[in-house]
C-alpha cells in the first residue's frame, strides 16, 4: 500500500520494466555501420554530383547575365526573385523537419534529422542570390506602402508620431539582417548538432576525415557537461531558427511581393507564405530521405516509420494550405472590392489561371486525395511521389506570384500607394533563356551543395541513432511483440 498527497492509502501496482539493447557493443555497431556507409562513395553519386554541378554552372551564367541586364527593368527580375523565394521556401524550411519532431520527442525523426539540417548549408546560396535584390527593393522615399510607416506617411496622421525618423532604407537593413541571421543560425545548428559525430570521425576515421573531425569537434569527448551544453544550445538555436524563419518569410512576402502590387493588402499572406515553406520543407526532406534509402545505402535505417510520420505531416500541411488560401480568397471573392477583384484577376483568374489550377492540383488536391489513404502514407513510394507533386506545385506558385507581381510593379511603380492597379497584365511573362538557366541552375546548385556536404558530414545522425538504443525496447504483450519507447523530459 502507498499513500498519496492527500494522505489517502492506495494500492500501488509495480511498473513493468522494459529492457533496452543499450550495450557498448550495440552502440559501437551502430557507429561502425553508419561510418562504413558514409565512407563508401559510389560512381553513381559522382555522376549525379557532376550533373548538378553542371546545372550550377548554368545557374552562375544566368546570374551573371541577369546582373548584366541591369536593375532598371523590374519585370525581367521576376523569375530571379521567384527562384530565390523557392529556395528560401524549400532549403531554409527543411531543418524544421528536424527541429519540430525533436522538440516533441518524436523518435521517428532520428534517421532523418541530419539530412533535414544539412539543407541549411544551401542557405548560403540563398544569401548570394539575395544580394542583387537589395538594389531592386524600392526605398521608402520612392513612395510605396511600407511596414515601416515612413515619415511622409507619418506626417498625414498624428497616429504616426514617432515614426518620422525611420530610415528610408529600413526594409533593406532589416531584411538583410534577418536573412543573414537565418543562415548563421542554420550553420550554428548544423555544427552543434554534428559535434558528437565529428568526434566519431576524429576517433574512428582516417586521413582527411580524421583531421576534419579533429578540427570541428571542438574537443568533444562526451562528458555530461558537454551533452547538457549541446542539448541546451540546440534547443535555444532551434527556437530562434523557427522564429527567424517565420520572420524572414514575413519580410519576403511583404517586401518582395505585396508592396509591389497596388491594393494587395492581405494580413494572412505572410502566414500562408511561411506555411507553404513548411509544406515544401517536408516535401524536400521526404524526397531526400527517399534518395538516401534507395541510392545511399541507408535502407536499414530509413523505413516506413519515417515516411509514415512525414506523410501525416504533409497531409496536415496540405490541408492547412487550403484553409489559409481559402481564408484569403473567400474574403476577396465575397466582398468584391475593386482592388481585391483586380488582385484576383492578376493572380488567379487572369493570364496565370492555368498555372494556378496546376498549382492547386499539385499542392492541395493530389496530396489530399492520395494521402488520406493509409496504404499510400505507409508506403515507401507514395509519400515521395506526393512530395514531388508538392515541390513542382510550390515552384509554380512562386513563379505565378512573383513573376506576376513584378510584372505589375514594372507597370504601376509610380502608383504603388494607390488602392487599385491601374492596369492588370494581360499575358504571362514568358521565361527567357537566362531565366531558365537561373531556375535549373540554382535548384541544381542547392542539390550540389547538399551532396558535397553529405560527403563531409555523416548524413545520418550517428549520435541520435545511438541515443535511440537507450529509449527503445521490445516487450511481449500477450501474443504480440510490441515496441516500447521512452519519452525523456
Amino acid at each position, binding site marked *: 500500500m502507498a499513500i498519496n498527497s492527500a494522505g489517502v492509502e*492506495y494500492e500501488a501496482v*509495480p511498473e513493468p*520494466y522494459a529492457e533496452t539493447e543499450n550495450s557498448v557493443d550495440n552502440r559501437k555497431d551502430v557507429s561502425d555501420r553508419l561510418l562504413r556507409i558514409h565512407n563508401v562513395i559510389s560512381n553513381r553519386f559522382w555522376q549525379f554530383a557532376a550533373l548538378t554541378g553542371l546545372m550550377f554552372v548554368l545557374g552562375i551564367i544566368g546570374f551573371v547575365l541577369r546582373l548584366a541586364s541591369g536593375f532598371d527593368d523590374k519585370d525581367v527580375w521576376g523569375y530571379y526573385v521567384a527562384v530565390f523565394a523557392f529556395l528560401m521556401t524549400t532549403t531554409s524550411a527543411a531543418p524544421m523537419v528536424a527541429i519540430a519532431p525533436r522538440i516533441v520527442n518524436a523518435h521517428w525523426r532520428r534517421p532523418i534529422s541530419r539530412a533535414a539540417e544539412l539543407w541549411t548549408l544551401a542557405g548560403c546560396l540563398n544569401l548570394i542570390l539575395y544580394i542583387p535584390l537589395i538594389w531592386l527593393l524600392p526605398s521608402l522615399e520612392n513612395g510605396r506602402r511600407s511596414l515601416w*510607416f515612413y515619415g511622409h506617411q507619418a506626417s498625414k496622421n498624428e497616429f504616426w508620431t514617432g515614426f518620422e525618423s525611420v530610415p528610408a532604407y529600413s526594409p533593406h537593413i532589416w531584411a538583410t539582417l534577418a536573412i543573414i541571421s537565418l543562415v548563421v543560425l542554420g550553420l550554428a545548428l548544423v555544427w552543434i548538432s554534428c559535434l558528437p559525430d565529428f568526434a566519431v570521425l576524429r576517433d574512428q576515421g582516417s586521413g582527411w576525415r580524421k583531421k576534419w573531425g579533429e578540427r570541428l569537434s571542438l574537443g568533444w569527448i562526451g562528458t555530461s557537461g558537454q551533452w547538457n551544453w549541446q542539448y541546451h544550445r540546440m534547443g535555444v538555436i532551434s527556437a530562434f531558427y523557427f522564429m527567424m524563419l517565420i520572420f524572414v518569410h514575413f519580410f519576403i512576402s511583404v517586401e518582395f511581393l505585396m508592396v509591389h502590387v497596388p491594393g494587395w493588402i492581405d*494580413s494572412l499572406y505572410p502566414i500562408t507564405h511561411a506555411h507553404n515553406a513548411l509544406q515544401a520543407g517536408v516535401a524536400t526532406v521526404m524526397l531526400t530521405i527517399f534518395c538516401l534509402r534507395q541510392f545511399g545505402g541507408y535502407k536499414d535505417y530509413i523505413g516506413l516509420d519515417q515516411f509514415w510520420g512525414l506523410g501525416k505531416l504533409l497531409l496536415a500541411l496540405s490541408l492547412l494550405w487550403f*484553409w489559409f488560401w481559402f481564408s484569403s480568397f473567400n474574403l476577396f471573392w465575397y466582398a468584391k472590392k475593386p482592388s481585391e477583384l483586380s488582385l484576383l484577376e492578376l493572380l488567379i483568374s487572369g493570364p496565370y489561371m492555368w498555372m494556378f489550377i496546376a498549382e492547386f492540383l499539385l499542392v492541395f488536391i493530389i496530396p489530399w486525395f492520395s494521402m488520406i489513404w493509409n496504404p499510400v502514407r505507409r508506403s515507401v513510394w507514395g509519400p515521395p511521389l506526393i512530395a514531388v507533386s508538392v515541390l513542382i506545385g510550390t515552384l509554380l506558385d512562386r513563379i505565378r506570384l512573383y513573376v506576376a507581381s513584378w510584372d505589375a510593379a514594372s507597370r504601376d511603380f509610380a502608383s504603388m500607394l494607390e488602392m487599385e492597379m491601374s492596369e492588370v497584365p494581360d499575358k504571362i511573362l514568358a521565361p527567357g533563356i537566362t531565366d531558365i538557366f537561373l531556375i535549373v541552375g540554382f535548384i541544381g546548385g542547392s542539390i550540389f551543395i547538399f551532396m558535397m556536404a553529405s560527403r563531409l558530414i555523416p548524413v545520418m545522425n550517428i549520435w541520435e541513432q545511438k541515443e535511440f538504443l537507450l529509449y527503445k525496447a521490445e516487450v511481449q504483450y500477450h501474443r504480440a511483440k*510490441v515496441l516500447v519507447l521512452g519519452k525523456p523530459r
Partner: protein
Amino acid sequence: MQEHTQLSQKQINDELLRDVLTVPKWWLPAVVGLGIVVATGLGAFSYMVYHGVGVTGLNRPVFWGFFIANFVFWIGISHAGIMISAILRLTQAEWRRPVTRAAEVMTVFSLIAALHTPLFHVGRPWRVLYWIFPYDFDRGIWPNIRSPFVWDPSAVGTYLIASSLFVFVCLLPDIAILRDRAKGLFVKRIYAFLCLGFRGTPRQWRLQTIAGILLSALVLPVFVSVHSIVSWDFAVLIGVEGWHSTIFAPYFIIGAIHSGVSAVAMLMALAVWLYKLDNYIKPDHFDAIARLLIVVATTWFFFFFLEWVYALYTLDSPEIALRELQAFEWPYGPLFAIFVILSFVIPVPMWLFKRFRRSAKIMFWTTILVNIGMWLERFLIVIPGLVRRTHMTFDWGTYHPSLVEILIVVETFAFVALGMLLFAKVLPLIPLFDVKEGVVFRHVIKVGRKTVPASIREGLPHHYYDKNH
C-alpha cells in the same frame, strides 16, 4: 510523466465512479446556486421577449453588443474539446488521457451556450424557423444561403452534433461499467440502454477505437470551419473598418484554442480540488498543458500583431481612426490594455517558470485571467468597429450594456458550469477506459541511474519489427 501513480483497475473504477455513485456534500448547494442564476437569466430573457429588444443597450449604430461578443467567446471555449481530445489523441500524447472527457463535455455545453446567445440576440427566437421554411410561400422568399448568418447555424449545429457523437462514443465503455455497478434497477436499465450492449469483446474494442480515431479526424475540419465561419460573419463585411481582414479566420481559431485550452487547465484544477482526483491529474499534467499554452499564446500574439500591423499598413484613415479608438480612447483604451495584459503579458511569462507551470493554483488563476482577457478581446472586436462614425452614418452613439444583457451573459456561464456538474453526477468526468489503457501501456526504462517513463507505441507498421529495423 515522471510522477505517475500506477493504480489497479479496481481502484480506478472505485475512485472515478465515487462521485457518480454517491453525492458529494457541496454538490447540491452548488447546483441550486447555479440553477438560480440560470433561472434569473432566463427570466431576463422572458422580460426581453415581452418588452422587446429595446430593453437592451443595442441601438443605432451598435446592433451587435454583449450577446455577439459572448457568442464568439463560447464558440472559442468550445474549441478546447477537439484541441485536447482529437488532436492529442491523433498525436498519441499520453498526458491527454485524464483530461479528454472534461474537455469534450465542456465543448458540448459551451456550444449550447454559444447557440442560445444569438437566438436571444434576435429577440424573437422562434424566427429561427425562417431558416427552415420560406419567409413567404406565395412570393417564394427563401433564406439567403449566401448570407454568413445561414453559414453560422449550419457550422455550429454540425459541430454540436459531431462533438456530442464524439463524447458518446468515448463514453460507451464507461457507461457499461456504470451499468454493472449501478444499484437501482431503473438506473441500471438506463445505463444498459445507453451503453448499446457494450461488453468489452475484442470486436467492440476494435470498433470503438476505430470510431474514436475516425471521429477525431472527421471532426477536425468541422472544428476549423466553425470559428472560420464565425470570423467571416465579421470579415466578409467591407462596411466596418477593422473587420475586413483576411487573417480573421486563423486569428479567431488560435484565439479560441488559447481560451479553450486555458479553460481546460482551469477545469483540471477544479477537478483536483472538488473531486480529489490528484491521483490522476498530476503537476506533470499542468506542466504539459502550460507548455502547450505557451506555444498557443505566442502564436496567437503573433497573429494579433499581424492583424494590427496590416491595419496600419493600409494607410486608410478610417481604419487608423478605428485603431486609435480601440487602443487609446475612453472607454476602450483601458479595456484594451487590460485585455493585452491579462491574456498575454501576465500569464505567458509566468508559464515560462516550471515552478508556476506545475502549480494547480497558479494555473487556475492565470487561465482565468486569460479568459477574462479573451472575452474582452471579442468585445473590442465587436463594439468599437460599430461605434465609430463613418461617412454614411446618420446616427452615432456609444454602447452601454443593460442589466438584461448582463444577466443573460452571466446565465451562459452558470449554464455551462451547471451542465458540467450535472454531467459529472451521472457520468465520470475522467475516462476510465482511457486511464486504464494508459496503465496497461505504461512501462519504465532504466537509463543509467534514472528511470524514464515509456509507453507501448501504437499503430506501427508490421515491418517495423523486422530485424533490419
